[in-house]
């Protein structure tokens, strides 16, 4: 993989992204070798994010994602809500996006990233929000509604819990990576 890139997204919270290197083209696009390479990319990103955050062992929350040879991780202090997703933009079609988002949400993403990446951005934002919400799963994705998307930022609200999430995102070399990092909510 390429050397990880890491950036600070909040005090003590970091996101790291690892993209496949040209040598990764030798890994088959499918099957066991691909899955192993993807998971390794996720682990490399996790190490990079953890190293950047410098949080004591056992005092941090981490979220990991991997797909298409890329890996991403978000790390924040214990008690924070953390979710990250990375996906090749071409992996997500309009049909995928339409199954988890309304037309207005897709249009908001399209205005920010352009038509080719809109479906992937919708997917990555919702997946990150769902993970930060503490659940995993496809079914929760429609519950997180994208309200607005701007350069590198987005706002979502959960229609069930009414929780608001501010997300960050980047589009790099055909991959979309989104994250939600939220401090503990005060009662």
């Amino acid at each position, binding site marked *: 993989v390429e050397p990880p890139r890491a950036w600070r997204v909040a005090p003590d919270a970091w996101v790291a992204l690892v993209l496949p290197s040209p040598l990764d083209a030798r890994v088959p696009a499918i099957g066991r070798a691909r899955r192993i390479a*993807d998971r390794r990319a996720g682990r490399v990103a996790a190490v990079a994010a953890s190293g950047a955050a410098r949080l004591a062992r056992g005092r941090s929350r981490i979220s990991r994602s991997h797909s298409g040879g890329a890996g991403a991780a978000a790390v924040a202090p214990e008690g924070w809500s953390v979710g990250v997703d990375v996906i090749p933009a071409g992996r997500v079609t309009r049909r*995928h996006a339409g199954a988890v988002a309304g037309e207005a949400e897709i249009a908001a993403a399209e205005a920010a990233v352009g038509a080719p990446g809109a479906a992937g951005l919708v997917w990555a934002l919702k997946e990150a929000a769902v993970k930060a919400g503490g659940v*995993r799963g496809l*079914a929760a994705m*429609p519950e997180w509604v994208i309200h607005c998307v701007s350069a590198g930022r987005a706002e979502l609200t959960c229609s069930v819990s009414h929780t608001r999430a501010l997300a960050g995102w980047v589009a790099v070399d055909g991959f979309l990576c989104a994250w939600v990092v939220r401090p503990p909510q005060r009662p």
Partner: protein
Amino acid sequence: VSVDPQVVAPGELHDAVRGLVSDVLMVPLDSVRADSALVGDLGAESIDFLDLIFRIEDLVKRKIPTSHWGAFVSERLPGADLSRAITTAVVVEFAERERDRPAA
């Protein structure tokens, strides 16, 4: 419950779903066993489950809202580690349920 015999015969559903899993996850058919965990053993990602739902829609010839999958998983596998608990057999069960679901 009425089942359209043109859709898929009950005994064929298991094999059909195995084939879908193999196609969507791009793994050899012989690696897809009834007890294979889609995430843990076969490397499925969340978007792959949506592809499976799309393919099951084609198989049973009816629209399947994404929420049906979530409701099914919550009811069938409460509290389970989904990376291990969602197996081919579970997906077959979901396809059976959708096939047999009375028309709205």
